């Protein structure tokens, strides 16, 4: 039987009105989702549909208005090391070297120094940053910074890895390189991953399963398995099955925007 690692049940998020002229925003409605152990799940949806709100609630950084988030069947409240997060924007600690950044979570847990260094080394190698241990974040390119961010989260051994458009700020080439890297890492480490994006290519390239979200208020519109055979890399982008799936998702999202334009 497959183990359900992360479960989100009947989640709602309403941002209350700010002042009298403002209207409350229903950001998420009736969200139910599951991520199995070692599964790579991607949520794709139009901008502003509540993707970040959802992942921040799962990560414990925001409160849900209603509903539950469970890890291994147990409710979780507030942030915790069991749910590691990688953000789109700049989140490295600029005063720490690459290695110290990666050791951060372990240091918070009071892991002894030698062991920290050993674990950090393992993940520095994994993301291909060998030789940059003592560099400061300001000396790294955007792609390298995200490598550090990923290594920093993985080194902490989270139960679930939550990623909110981690490659959104990168240029197209670096993006593909990072996608391939992440695909490889997820295969090797068998991490459970929930990844958010509005890039359909990225979603199909990475996912075992894709949740398609609707426009605001964000609901889950469809779920589909990605069963395309072979390596997960850029060559996949031109396979007929890939294009077929892409067309399907695009149509769904396009339908969404039509509905929105009609005021439905």
């Amino acid at each position: 039987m497959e183990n359900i690692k992360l479960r989100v049940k009947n989640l709602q998020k309403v941002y209350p009105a700010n002042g009298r002229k403002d209207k409350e925003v229903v950001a998420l409605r009736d969200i139910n989702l599951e991520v199995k152990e070692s599964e790579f799940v991607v949520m794709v949806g139009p901008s502003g549909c509540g993707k970040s709100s959802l992942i921040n609630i799962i990560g414990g950084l925001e409160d849900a208005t209603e509903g539950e988030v469970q890890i291994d069947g147990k409710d979780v409240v507030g942030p915790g090391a069991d749910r590691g997060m990688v953000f789109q924007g700049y989140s490295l600690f600029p005063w720490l070297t690459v290695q110290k950044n990666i050791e951060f979570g372990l240091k918070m847990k009071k892991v002894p120094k030698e062991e920290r260094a050993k674990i950090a080394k393992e993940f520095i190698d994994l993301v291909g940053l060998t030789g940059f241990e003592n560099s400061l974040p300001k000396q790294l390119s955007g792609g390298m910074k995200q490598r550090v961010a990923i290594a920093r989260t993985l080194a902490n051994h989270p139960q679930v890895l939550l990623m909110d458009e981690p490659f959104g700020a990168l240029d197209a080439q670096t993006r593909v390189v990072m996608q391939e890297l992440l695909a490889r890492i997820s295969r090797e480490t068998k991490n459970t991953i929930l990844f958010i994006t509005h890039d359909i290519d990225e979603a199909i390239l990475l996912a075992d399963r894709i949740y398609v979200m609707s426009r605001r208020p964000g609901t889950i519109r469809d779920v589909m398995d990605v069963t395309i055979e072979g390596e997960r890399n850029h060559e996949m982008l031109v396979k007929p099955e890939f294009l077929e799936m892409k067309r399907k998702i695009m149509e769904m999202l396009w339908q969404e925007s039509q509905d929105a334009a009609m005021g439905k």
Partner: protein
Amino acid sequence: MKKQKTKGLSYGCISGISFCVIMAAWCIATYGGFVSDIFMPSPTAVWESIVEMAKDGSLWEHCFVSTKRVMIGWFWSAIAALPIGMLMARSKKFSAVFQPVIEFARYLPVVALVPLTLLYLGIDENQKYVIIFLGTFFQLVLMICDTVSGIEKNMINAARTLGANKLQVYTEVIFPAALPGLMDDFRLTIGWAWTYLVVAEMVAASAGLGYIILKSQRFLATDVIFAGLIMIGLIGLVTDFLLRLLTKVIVPWHERLGD
């Protein structure tokens, strides 16, 4: 690289020229006999009074007394402002409690509080520290609050999801992240501390640069007044320079400093 260096040099030149122009104006006004000695002493007169005070040791004593007062008053103000400013930036509740009080207090002119401090504390050293404290504390709290509010939110969120507890978020992330900005805040307020020092020393003191400035006014010893002003300016310059240097040493990672 080379281009930048010449640019730096030319800024140095500009500063040098502006200094020379002021000196020249001063020389012309005084040696040319356009202004009376009583209003503006000549550079030679000021220099002589500095040398004289340096010889009998009183100059160093006054400088030392004043600097010590500034440092102690400002130090306590910084120590107290730091946690309050940080907490105000992070907690809406805390901010709701302190914001109105601080906004109110910072508009109170410190000079108007001098009689009260004299009443409560007399004329001893503590009264000087309190004046400097009152002059800098409220502003510093708001500046620190602002600096801490400006920290990249992702950084704090990352720390929380990496398992840092509340205290660790402050000590391991918020404080170091805010440090470059805090150093700027400290540097600015230490300048203001000198203003309040002079206020304190002009009211009730028997030593210090503010005290000799006031005393000299009674004897129309304008040269000593100028000497006092120049010493305050110089100490200010040196403090500023040292704090900048210290900033470079403790936050070498900061982007703005480059490398």
